[in-house]
């Protein structure tokens, strides 16, 4: 059997003494026990001797001796021992012996984790490696997308404060500054899906993947495929590059430069272009189909209509299904039907509010980044910017989207039952003065949001306790 390889990360609050004592203690102990060790230190000067992906893959076990966040999610699925830095110093040999004896447990995030890392939630054990890798890729996309959503969303929300039509040069309330805010915010939003796709692909296939993912995401965005289309683009792009890497493996090493600067981008972009174009083609049809479908229910009873509108609005938040509901709403506004839009708006406002309330009521089950984004979502929700919920939904679409759909449906059903009328297509609570039944409308939205928040929070709680 080859020599046991152990990797470790040490860190303490000040990063001056104990971080390095633990490093030294582990090295001494490893030497005594005849194992290889590499220790990454999270000290005052930053991270030193950083563990590479290769190190992590090759390691037989991981020792985390730290009183601060050392980004433990990297070690998902590895036999890992997590202790305080003090134990790392004092019981170094014991810890290493535990790894040698195979007594370490496979790393799974716990809610007691001090880590703020996104990837902690939903931890899966080794048997579920594939699912976990998918999750890791998604997370990489979401964490890069998030600032675009927040930055873009907040600027758009601020532009609404100048008036809902303040960015429209034709409108009397036109304001140049508001238009600027709305435009740059809109640019942030238009990059949201491409960035999501790019960094999903980046996680799968590094930089060559990123390039191809970016293009795929752009096509998804332009083709109206929404963030679900972006997720698809990211995974397809990543695996295109993985496949190309396999196919081009036989090429001589001397051509490596050619591969990364020429072959991967040229072939990759071509392939994603073809695939995504084919993929977004039915989007228009889906969109049209959903509109017709919705049209049939336009006059049905409030519960059925609310259920459908709510579910559609929260399903893909900006994708073809959501847009079908929204466009139908605006079309009906033109015909003087203010009832329909009220439900659509309620259903669009609810998802960000669900995430916002959930991060407040279930604080400890969300990491810092999520809590911050949750706070911002109060603003985005209140101004009808549904996209705020995307970063939350994209982390685990299969569970989170249905929760958002339930919440949105409740909001829409109540809105229809109380016969609220909303004459504006956008703006959220900023248009309350012109809403007929404003109080009932806010009430309906709050109920849907709170129900959704508790479902979501409960799910997070369970996922974290797993």
């Amino acid at each position, binding site marked *: 059997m080859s020599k046991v390889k152990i990797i470790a990360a040490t860190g303490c609050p*000040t990063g*001056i003494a104990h971080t*390095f*004592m633990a490093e030294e203690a582990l090295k001494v102990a490893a030497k005594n026990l005849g194992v290889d060790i590499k220790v990454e230190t999270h000290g*005052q*000067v930053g991270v030193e001797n950083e563990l590479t992906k290769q190190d992590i893959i090759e390691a037989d076990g991981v020792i985390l001796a730290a009183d601060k966040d050392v980004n433990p999610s990297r070690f998902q699925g590895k036999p890992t021992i997590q202790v305080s*830095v003090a134990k790392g110093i004092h019981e170094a040999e014991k810890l290493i012996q535990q790894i040698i004896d195979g007594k370490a447990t496979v790393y799974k995030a716990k809610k007691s984790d001090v880590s703020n890392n996104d990837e902690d939630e939903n931890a899966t054990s080794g048997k579920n490696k594939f699912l976990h890798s998918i999750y890791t890729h998604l997370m990489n996309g979401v964490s890069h997308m998030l600032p675009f959503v927040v930055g873009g969303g907040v600027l758009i929300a601020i532009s609404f404060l100048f008036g809902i039509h303040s960015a429209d040069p034709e409108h009397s309330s036109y304001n140049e500054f508001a238009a600027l805010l709305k435009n740059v915010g809109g640019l942030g939003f238009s990059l949201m899906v491409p960035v999501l796709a790019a960094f999903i692909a980046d996680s799968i296939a590094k930089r060559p993947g990123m390039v191809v993912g970016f293009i795929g995401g752009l096509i998804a965005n332009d083709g109206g495929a929404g963030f679900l289309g972006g997720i698809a683009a990211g995974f397809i792009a990543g695996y295109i590059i993985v496949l190309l890497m396999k196919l081009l493996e036989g090429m001589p090493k001397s051509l490596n430069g050619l591969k990364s600067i020429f072959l991967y981008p040229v072939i990759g972009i071509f392939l994603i272009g073809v695939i995504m174009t084919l993929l977004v083609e039915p989007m228009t049809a889906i969109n049209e189909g959903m509109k017709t479908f919705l049209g049939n229910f336009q006059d049905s009873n409030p519960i059925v209509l609310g259920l459908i509108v709510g579910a559609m609005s929260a399903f893909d938040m900006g994708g073809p299904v959501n847009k079908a509901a929204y466009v139908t709403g605006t079309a009906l506004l033109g015909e003087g039907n203010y009832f329909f839009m009220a439900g659509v708006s309620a259903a669009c406002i609810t998802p960000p509010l669900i995430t916002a309330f959930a991060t407040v009521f279930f604080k400890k089950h969300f990491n810092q980044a999520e809590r911050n984004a949750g706070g911002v979502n109060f603003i985005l929700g209140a101004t009808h910017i549904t996209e705020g919920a995307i970063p939350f939904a994209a982390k685990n679409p299969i569970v989170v989207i249905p929760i958002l759909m339930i919440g949105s449906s409740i909001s829409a059903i109540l809105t229809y039952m109380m016969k609220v009328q909303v004459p504006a297509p956008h703006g959220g609570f900023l248009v309350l003065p012109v809403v007929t039944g404003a109080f009932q409308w806010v009430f309906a939205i709050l109920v849907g949001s709170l129900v959704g928040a508790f479902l979501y929070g409960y799910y997070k709680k369970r996922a974290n306790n797993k």
Partner: protein
Amino acid sequence: MGNNLINENYIKLEQDIHSQDELFEAVANLAIEQNIATNKADIIAGLKKRESESTTGFQDGFAIPHTQLNTIAHPSILVITTKNELEWNSMDGKPANFFIVLLIPKDQAGSTHIQALSAVSKMLIHSNNRESLKNSTKASDIYQLLQDFVN
């Protein structure tokens, strides 16, 4: 590196000190006296705060109290040993009597000095180094030992 991290005047042996508070008081006085720091209360508060986060007590009587403050002029290593052993909540549960105090200016993040200070904590891991320090009876011997690790 001709550093001024440590010199013999920073080392006080066999002090008549009976508690953590008294030790921090002595550290602060020494730091002011040696022009390492300008604010006594700051040092005491800083050391206490670090101690409250987790003990700096190590083992075999060694502890490494440390703090990082704006009012510290230059990075320094002070050594104080006490006649009596002090309760320090150490990792091995034993009281401490050999204190290596690291005082660090706030703006020194990332400097080579920090690495030097870390080197001092590292060497304590090796029991032979602890032996040598314990067996030193003169400030000049301790100075020499630490100096060797720092450079």
